[in-house]
C-alpha cells in the first residue's frame, strides 16, 4: 500500500497493515505538512500583524482625520457662511449696480474690440428711442448722421489704438424719431485676465438741453456784448470795485484814450474826493457796490471827474449785479445828466418864481378886489343916487347913460366879489379836518331850497363818505355844482344825483344831472375863470363858479372833470386826495 492509497482510505488501517516504510512516509508527510503550516503561520502572522498595525494606524488616522475633518468642517462652515455673506453682498452689490445702471439718467454701454455694442442699459430707450436689444450688434457710428459718424470715427479709431480711457467726447446722434441728440461720451478700456484688450465700457450723457442752454447763453452774451459796446450810456463791467470792461462811451465820457487805459481802474479814479453831500466818494461807492452785490439794484446820482481835464459833471448811475458765463459781475450804467440837472435847476427856479408870482398875484387879486370894492361901491352908490335924483331932469340919452353906468358898476361889483372869492380859496382857507360829506350835502340843499322849489328840481344821493377836507370849501364846491345843475336844466325839471365813494387814497364824487349838456370841445374851457358858454341874458352869473371848484379841488390834491353830451345831461366828477389833505 503506497502513501496515496493509504491516505485515500476511509477507515484507519490496522497496525499490521502498515510497514515501517509506510510509517516513515507518513512521518515525512506529517513533517512536511507541519513545515508548510509553520510557513503559512509565519505568513498569516505577518499579514495579521500588518493588518492589526494598519487598523491601529487607521484608528489613529481616523481619529486624526476626524479632528482634521472637524476643524476643516468648522473652517468650511465658516467659509460657507463667509461665502454666503459674500455672495449676498455680491448679489446686493450687483442689484445695486444694476439698479444704478437702470435708474441713472445716463446710458451705460459696452463695445467689443470692433466697436460693436455687446451691452446697453435700458436708458437708451429714453435717450435715443431704441430698445437695448436693438442696439446690440450695432456700432456707435450706426446711430450718428453720416458726416458726424465720419468725423467721430477718426477720433475713436485713434482712441482705440491708444487703448486708453477717454472722457467728455461730444457727438451728435440721431434719435429713432429723427431728432438730433447731443451725447457726451466717456469710456474706459476693458482687458481680460491676460491683459488682452477686449473693448470699451462707458457712459453717455444726453447734453442736448445743456447745449441749447449754452447756445442761448452764448447768444444772450453776444447780444449783451453788442448792446454793451454800442450803448448810448457809459457802461462798465466790474469785479468788486475794478472796471474789467468799459464801452466806448465810457472811455470817451471819462477822458481816456483807449479801452486798455481804463481797464483795472476804479470809480475813485474818476471821482472827486468827496460827493456834494460831503461824504467821501470811496466810502459812498463801497456802500452802493455792497448793496448791489447783495442783489439790490442801486440808482443814484454821482459827481464824476474827467480824468484828462478834471472837469466835474453829474451822472445818474444804475448799478446792479449780473451773471455772465456763470460768474457774477456788477454792471454800472452811467448817464451824463449835466444838461438835465441844469434844466431841472432851471425848472425848479422857474417853479419857485411862479409860486412866488402866484402868491403875489393871489395877494394882489385879494387886495385889489378888496380895495377896489370901496371905490366901486362909491361909484355904484353915487351913480344910483344920480339916477334917483335927476332921472326926470335929464333927457332920455342921459338916463340911458346913467343906467349903463349903474349896470356896469353892479356887474363890476359882482366880478370883484367873485374874484375875491377865488383868491380866498388859496389864501383864506380853513384847516382840513374829517368832514362828513352827507352833512355837507344837507347844508347845500338847505342853501338852494328856493331854487329847488322854483325849478321843481329833484335831488337824490347815495350815502357819501367822510373825507379830510376844508368843510366850508366842500360846501362851496358841492353847492356850485348843484346850482349849475339846477341852473342849466333843459325842458324837464332838474333831476340831480350825488354819489361818492372812497377808492385807494382818494374820495371820488360825482354830480349827475339831466340838463342841457356840454359840447366836449368846452370840457376844459368851462373851468377857466370868467369863461361863459352862454349869453348872460340867458343864464346869469359871472362864469367863475367852476373856476372856484377847480381851485378848491386842486387845494385838496384832487382833480375835476366833466363827462357830458349836448342835450343828454352832464356828470361832474371830482376827487379829494386824503394824503394831500392830511399833509397840508
Amino acid at each position, binding site marked *: 500500500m503506497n*502513501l496515496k492509497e493509504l491516505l485515500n482510505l476511509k477507515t484507519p488501517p490496522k497496525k499490521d497493515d502498515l510497514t515501517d516504510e509506510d510509517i516513515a*512516509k507518513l512521518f*515525512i*508527510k506529517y*513533517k*512536511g505538512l507541519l*513545515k508548510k503550516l509553520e*510557513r503559512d503561520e*509565519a*505568513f498569516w*502572522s*505577518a*499579514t495579521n*500583524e*500588518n493588518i492589526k*498595525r494598519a487598523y491601529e494606524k487607521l484608528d489613529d488616522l481616523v481619529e486624526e482625520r476626524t479632528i482634521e475633518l472637524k476643524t476643516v468642517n468648522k473652517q468650511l462652515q465658516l467659509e460657507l457662511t463667509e461665502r454666503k455673506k459674500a455672495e449676498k453682498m455680491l448679489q446686493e452689490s450687483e442689484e445695486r449696480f444694476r439698479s444704478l445702471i437702470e435708474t441713472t439718467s445716463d446710458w451705460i454701454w459696452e463695445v467689443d474690440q470692433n466697436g460693436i455694442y455687446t451691452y446697453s442699459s435700458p436708458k437708451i430707450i429714453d435717450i435715443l428711442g431704441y430698445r437695448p436689444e436693438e442696439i446690440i450688434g450695432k456700432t456707435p457710428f450706426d446711430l450718428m448722421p453720416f458726416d458726424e459718424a465720419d468725423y467721430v470715427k477718426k477720433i475713436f479709431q485713434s482712441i482705440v489704438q491708444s487703448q486708453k480711457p477717454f472722457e467728455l467726447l461730444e457727438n451728435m446722434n440721431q434719435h429713432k424719431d429723427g431728432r438730433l441728440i447731443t451725447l457726451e461720451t466717456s469710456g474706459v478700456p476693458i482687458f481680460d485676465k491676460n491683459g488682452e484688450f477686449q473693448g470699451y465700457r462707458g457712459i453717455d450723457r444726453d447734453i442736448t438741453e445743456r447745449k441749447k442752454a449754452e447756445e442761448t447763453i452764448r447768444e444772450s452774451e453776444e447780444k449783451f456784448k453788442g448792446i454793451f459796446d454800442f450803448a448810448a450810456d457809459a457802461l462798465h463791467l466790474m469785479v468788486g470795485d475794478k472796471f474789467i470792461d468799459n464801452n466806448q462811451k465810457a472811455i470817451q465820457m471819462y477822458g481816456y484814450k483807449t479801452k486798455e487805459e481804463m481797464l483795472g481802474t476804479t470809480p475813485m479814479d474818476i471821482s472827486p474826493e468827496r460827493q456834494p453831500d460831503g461824504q467821501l466818494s470811496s466810502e459812498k461807492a463801497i456802500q452802493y457796490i455792497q448793496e448791489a452785490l447783495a442783489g439790490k439794484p442801486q440808482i443814484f446820482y454821482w459827481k464824476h471827474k474827467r480824468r484828462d481835464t478834471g472837469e466835474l459833471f453829474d451822472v445818474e448811475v444804475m448799478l446792479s449785479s449780473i451773471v455772465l458765463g456763470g460768474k457774477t459781475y456788477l454792471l454800472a450804467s452811467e448817464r451824463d445828466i449835466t444838461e438835465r440837472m441844469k434844466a431841472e435847476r432851471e425848472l425848479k427856479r422857474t417853479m419857485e418864481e411862479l409860486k412866488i408870482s402866484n402868491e403875489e398875484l393871489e395877494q394882489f387879486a385879494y387886495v385889489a378886489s378888496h380895495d377896489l370894492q370901496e371905490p366901486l361901491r362909491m361909484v355904484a352908490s353915487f351913480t344910483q343916487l344920480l339916477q334917483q335924483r335927476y332921472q326926470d331932469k335929464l333927457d332920455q340919452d342921459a338916463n340911458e347913460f346913467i343906467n349903463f353906468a349903474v349896470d356896469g358898476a353892479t356887474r363890476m361889483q359882482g366880478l370883484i366879489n367873485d374874484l375875491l372869492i377865488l383868491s380866498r380859496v388859496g389864501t383864506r382857507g380853513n384847516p382840513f379836518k374829517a368832514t362828513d360829506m352827507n352833512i355837507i350835502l344837507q347844508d347845500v340843499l338847505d342853501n338852494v331850497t328856493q331854487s329847488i322849489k322854483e325849478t321843481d328840481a329833484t335831488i337824490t344821493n347815495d350815502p357819501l363818505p367822510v373825507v379830510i377836507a376844508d368843510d366850508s370849501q366842500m360846501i362851496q364846491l358841492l353847492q356850485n355844482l348843484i346850482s349849475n345843475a339846477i341852473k342849466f336844466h333843459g325842458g324837464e325839471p332838474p333831476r340831480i344825483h350825488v354819489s361818492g365813494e372812497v377808492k385807494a387814497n382818494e374820495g371820488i364824487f360825482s354830480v349827475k344831472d339831466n340838463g342841457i349838456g356840454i359840447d366836449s370841445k368846452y370840457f376844459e374851457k368851462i373851468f377857466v375863470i370868467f369863461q361863459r358858454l352862454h349869453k348872460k341874458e340867458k343864464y346869469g352869473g359871472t362864469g367863475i363858479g367852476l373856476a372856484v371848484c377847480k381851485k378848491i379841488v386842486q387845494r385838496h390834491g384832487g382833480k375835476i372833470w366833466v363827462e357830458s353830451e349836448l342835450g343828454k345831461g352832464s356828470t361832474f366828477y371830482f376827487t379829494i386826495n386824503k394824503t394831500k389833505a392830511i399833509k397840508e
Partner: protein
Amino acid sequence: MSKGKMKKLEVFGATIQGFVNACKNLNIVAGSKATELISDIEVNRWYPFERLRNIEKIVIESYENAKPILERAGTEMMLTWYKFGPGKQIIDNGVDFLKFQSGSQGYASVVKGPENLGGSFELVKIDINKGNALIHSTTPFNKDLERGIIIGGMSAPGDLDYIDVTNDEDEHYFNIEFH
C-alpha cells in the same frame, strides 16, 4: 545569464509580472496600485532590474515583518510559473527544479546583464538519496524572496512531501532538505 558586455542589469518581463501577480493573489499589494505597477509590462521584454527592486521595496516598506511575506510571494510566484507558465515544460519534479539551477541556468533565463551586477544563483551540491542540497546565491534578489522561490519551485510539481529551505547562518547559502 548572458555574458555580453551589457552595462545594465535587466529582468525578464514575465518575472516582474509573475511577482506582481503573486502579490495580487495574496493581497499583499492590492487593487489599482498593483495594476499600476505592471500596466506597461510586456512579458517578453526585458526591463531594468530596478523595476523589480522597486516592487520589492513597496512590500518591504508595507510590512513590519516582511520576511514571511516575501517568502510566500516567492513561493506563489513559482507555483504560478509552474501551473500557468513554462514550468511544466522545464521540470518534471521538485528535484528537477534544483537541477535546473545548475550553472545558474535558471537564473540566467530571467535576468541578464553584467556579471558583477547580476551575480549567480547556482546549485552547489545535491544528494538525492539523503534529500539535501546547497544553493549559493549572489544575486541582487531579496533573499527571503529567493527562499520562497526555491520552496515554490520545488513544491509546484507536487511530488515532494517535505521541503525545508534555510539560510539563517549565511543568507547567500540556502540549505535545502527534501523528501
